[in-house]
């Protein structure tokens, strides 16, 4: 009886995991069917995968992939630069001003994406921003930068405040002290902030979909995927293979990332003792 009771929660965990992973495994299995109607007319085949390179719409697929990466790279670089410098600034503002700026900085994070998307769209239309890349990059930088700031801030709190003063005493001007002293010290926060900005931009659908403009023809992977769920010619055979590749990449990165994190924490713990 006691044993059954202790096993029960584990069975529950496994059941939830099964439900959670069924769709993912399902998609991976059917990515080898070469069809989108969940049958295996030709048995296990790599046709779906080769369709990625041979299908008539492969141009659109690769363009959207290229756009996704360019957008994520450009916006994460810009938001990392803005975010890192601003985090230093915000950290040293007067407490009242700092609290206010931090609250506004939270807005893009807490706000629901659809409200942010339509508010930006209305703003871009009102002030006649050129549709396309300009709008997309501004929108992405707007929702990525707050995450960079939030990731740099804790590093600043850990920093010895005297180091900056020492740099000034030794003759550095504030800008030089920023780039030669503060920025290198908070580098780990900047790097994780940049990674975060890149991922969030890569992952975005709603804000891109609403701000890309219908006439520009710019599509990212997610907006192209969305439009192809509605396309008259049907859901292309390469999508389940593409999903599988995306899932594989994500799983690898998350698992490796967590493994590295655990290892680091472990060595830190044993090093401290």
């Amino acid at each position, binding site marked *: 009886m006691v044993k059954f009771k202790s096993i029960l929660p584990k069975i529950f965990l496994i059941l939830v995991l099964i439900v959670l992973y069924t769709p993912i495994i399902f998609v991976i299995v059917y990515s080898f069917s070469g069809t989108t109607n969940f049958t295996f007319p030709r048995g296990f085949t790599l046709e779906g995968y080769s369709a990625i390179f041979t299908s008539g719409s492969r141009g659109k697929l690769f363009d959207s992939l290229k756009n996704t990466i360019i957008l994520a790279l450009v916006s994460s670089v810009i938001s990392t630069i803005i975010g890192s410098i601003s985090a230093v*600034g915000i950290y040293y503002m007067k407490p009242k001003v700092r609290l206010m700026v931090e609250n506004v900085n939270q807005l893009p994070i807490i706000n629901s994406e659809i409200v942010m998307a339509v*508010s930006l769209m209305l703003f871009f239309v009102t002030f006649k921003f050129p549709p396309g890349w300009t709008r997309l990059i501004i929108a992405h930088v707007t929702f990525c930068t707050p995450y960079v700031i939030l990731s740099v801030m804790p590093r600043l709190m850990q920093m010895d405040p005297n180091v900056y003063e020492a740099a000034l005493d030794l003759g550095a001007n504030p800008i030089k002290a920023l780039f030669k002293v503060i920025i290198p010290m908070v580098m780990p926060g900047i790097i994780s902030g940049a990674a975060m900005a890149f991922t969030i931009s890569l992952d975005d659908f709603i804000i891109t979909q609403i701000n890309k403009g219908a006439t520009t023809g710019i599509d990212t992977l997610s907006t192209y995927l969305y439009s192809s769920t509605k396309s008259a010619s049907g859901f292309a055979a390469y999508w389940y293979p593409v999903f599988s590749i995306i899932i594989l990449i994500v799983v690898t990165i998350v698992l490796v990332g967590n493994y590295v994190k655990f290892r680091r924490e472990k060595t830190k713990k044993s090093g401290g003792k």
Partner: protein
Amino acid sequence: MKTNPLKKVSQKIKNFRLTRGVFAWPYVLFLTVFVVLPLVIILVNAFLADGKLSFANFIALAKDGASIKVLINSIFIGAVTTILCLAIGYPVAYTLANMKTGSIIVILFLLPMWVNFLVRTLAARAVFEALSIPLGEGTVLFGMVYNYIPFMILPLHTTLTNIDKSFGEAAADLGADRVTVFLKVTLPLSVPGIISGIIMVFIPTISTFAISQLLGGVHLFGDSIHEKFIHGLYGVGSVMSLIMLAFVLLSNMLLKKFNKGEAKASIW
């Protein structure tokens, strides 16, 4: 949050000194232009009808039976999704918090969160199609729970693992049985995690865009906001965005009240 940062900036220009705070000024300007101003434009548009300030858009929305129905239905679906996520997520987080390997296994529960939500949604739809389960409210609910449950498990797991085990041990030493320990110690101490989880599931669910459409042709509030803007009904769309924004700000206030000083659950 309402005070105009521009005014503050112009005041500062008068007595300029290159302190470190100055490094944030470009970003303050950026935030003002690209975060605050767009929301102000939404606010103005909500009260602007035919070039005049009025409540016409609010009245139009109140009379728009279809939109009100969508709002009520969204709140209903949001509530059911949240309850289901909590009912499934809490036991999961609780069990994991009491397992030695819990902090490793939890990664398995959070992993799907990293896959793009459109991919997850279409994967769920693929299962329904293959099993010829008709798409409708039921499949929408499944999709919502499936998509958002990691956001419930994450804050719950963080809070539950951070509860000092000695509280429970002390209660047990004083004669409380396991149920009492849970009800009187663990549950009350996990309230901040419950609140974060509820908010992290409820807000995205009601404002969701595309998930419900793809999983059952059901329109939720996010979809109808989008639709209004697509059809050029900026006024009514803005009123609806304001309603959504009110939900967001209210829940954020609630969150701050319950999470005073506590380390917030972080996806990272």
